[in-house]
């Protein structure tokens, strides 16, 4: 297992390098100019100097190499130094600078991350907490009213996009009922019970929209996997042994049904970090998804490249974690 993990990690390096190059070249080829926002009154020669100051004067492969060096050595060292509080860990050198704000990309990401993790992460956890028990029960009592209701809600969650459910909730709960604020206020500092209540209220709608979406997907997978296993012979064996229904369902069937569900859950975790781009836009949650969209609009190449790369690493990483979990869940899978 260890050698397998190591081999997979080593294989991930060329994969990620290729992804980085592909994203870099795509951005290079894309139209758009980081100087486009600047006033037209700026004389062309000054404009050119500003371009050079952003590092755009050099050939693409030199810029790619420099970005790669900063991304893999300099930025991680700063992040580490910030997390541990030991300043000496930071490697001296140029950091990746956002074209828009002229501040290090890592710092902006660090500011944005908590919002995304709170809203999207919470909705993901809620989604799992709702979907897994509901899926198990739906399969156990197939075609019961709980199952039918679960199927209906899942269908709604699947088929209605978040840009529909989001404004719908806003209309009902913010405008008609006035329960929740429309705009998510990132500057809110939670230091009293009242502020905490406010925070809960502003999180309620985005979290609900995303929970519905996540739960719909996981619930269907859970139910299908459970149904697959309920018809297996070993379930009858377990009942013949005189196991209680609890043991039959939770030990025998649930454990054997977890593989597809673990895949869906593990592969979905990177999306917590990438943020729900649309939902964050609708509710004005300035998380990572919104950051990425704004960076793309502004042709902020370092920001787009760095964020995309972080997402790529997360996706590759959670793929690996899912594969390792398979071996934990199924003794027939061995990676030696």
């Amino acid at each position: 297992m260890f050698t397998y993990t190591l081999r997979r990690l080593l294989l991930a390096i060329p994969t990620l390098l290729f992804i980085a190059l592909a994203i870099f070249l795509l951005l290079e080829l894309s139209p758009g100019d980081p100087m486009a926002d600047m006033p037209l009154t700026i004389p062309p020669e000054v404009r050119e100097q500003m371009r050079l100051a952003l590092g755009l004067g050099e050939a693409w492969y030199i810029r790619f190499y420099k970005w790669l060096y900063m991304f893999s050595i300099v930025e991680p060292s700063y992040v580490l130094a910030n997390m541990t509080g030991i300043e000496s860990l930071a490697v001296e050198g140029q950091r990746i600078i956002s074209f828009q704000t002229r501040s290090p990309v890592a710092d902006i990401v660090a500011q944005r991350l908590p919002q995304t993790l709170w809203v999207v992460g919470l909705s993901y956890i809620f989604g799992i907490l709702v979907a897994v028990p509901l899926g198990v029960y739906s399969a156990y009592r197939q075609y019961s009213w709980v199952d039918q209701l679960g199927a209906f809600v899942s269908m709604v969650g699947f088929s209605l996009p978040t840009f529909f459910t989001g404004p719908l909730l806003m209309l009902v709960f913010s405008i008609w009922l006035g329960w929740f604020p429309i705009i998510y206020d990132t500057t809110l500092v939670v230091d009293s019970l009242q502020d905490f209540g406010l925070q809960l209220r502003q999180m309620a709608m985005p979290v609900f929209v995303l929970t519905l979406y996540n739960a719909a997907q996981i619930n269907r997978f859970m139910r299908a996997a459970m149904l697959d296993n309920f018809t297996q012979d070993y379930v009858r064996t377990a009942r013949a042994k005189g196991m209680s229904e609890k043991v039959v369902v939770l030990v025998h069937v649930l454990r054997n049904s977890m593989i597809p569900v673990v895949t869906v859950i593990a592969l979905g975790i990177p999306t917590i970090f990438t943020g729900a781009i649309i939902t964050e836009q609708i509710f004005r949650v300035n998380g990572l998804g919104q950051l990425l969209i704004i960076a793309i609009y502004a042709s902020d190449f370092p920001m787009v490249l760095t964020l995309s790369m972080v997402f790529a690493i997360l996706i590759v990483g959670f793929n690996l974690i899912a594969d390792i979990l398979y071996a934990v869940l199924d003794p027939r899978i061995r990676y030696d």
Partner: protein
Amino acid sequence: MSGARKLVEVKDLKLHFPIHGGLLRRQVGAVKAVDGVSFDIFEGETLGIVGESGCGKSTCGRAVLRLYEATEGSITIDGQDISKLSGEALRKKRPTMQMVFQDPQASLNPRMTVAGIIGEPLDEHTNWDRRKKLERIYELMDAVGLNRDFANRYPHAFSGGQRQRIGIARALALNPKFIVCDEPIAALDVSIQAQVVNLLEDLQQQFGLTYMFISHDLSMVRHIADRVAVMYLGVIVELAPVQALYDNPMHPYTEALLSAVPEPDPSAEVRKDRIVLQGDVPSPSNPPKGCNFCTRCPKVMPICREIPPETQEVAPGHFAACHLIDQQQIAGPTGGTGQEHNQTENQQGEEA
């Protein structure tokens, strides 16, 4: 046998699977998988159940252990009617009655070790400590001829025969009195079949077990069973001690079944006069009027298409459900139909 105690008494067992149809999914009919079956099994004996595919053998076996809910009828095991027991009481009763399943691969949980599979009933039904449980697991593995070193392996690492041994050890874990063997050898190679059947016989002697042995392998049933019941389309058409049934079958279906047994001697095989049944088994959701077998019976009479035959005791311990028996009794042993009947019997006798 008559002196022995009845361990299992099944009375008029019916198991109908509902068919739902139409817009509102109402019940529009039922698959009558088991349709009024009665038999007793005495302590320490083996009752063989034979019949072709789809005749309800396995369903009957599962219903007897209440792995399916019976539609009607009573099942008394060890003096207790289990057809009415509630969930928890039934679970407490499970150690007495166990089952060995047909497919040794699918019936074992692929994510549990051998020790886990065999030991799980002990976790549920005893309060032994770990050491005692492990001791019992090893003891059972010895009893079925599995190497103790294999205790921590998973089912996929075993051959079919070994897996069936795991299944048998699992069934034995709680010292059951009664075991339903649902085609335990059907999925195995012929060489392994003998091993498993011999193992079952040894265990029967050793632990005084009572078996209900479901199979479509007539030679194997002849070898292992004390009495045999022949099923056709959800009913028992004939039930007799093994010798009587094989030597002197009363029901035309039994005759047809027995004539289908392959003959090892090629010259005898050529001469053999097989009774080849025409057509297929009728659908159990729509059985024919009268006798279930009337659509394929070579000796069908008008009465067979009208009135279902009653089961009657032809000889001591030999039960059959066929109108021919009445005819025979009326016409006497030398009567027309009876003679024809006897000829076939003689053939069977020669082959045996």
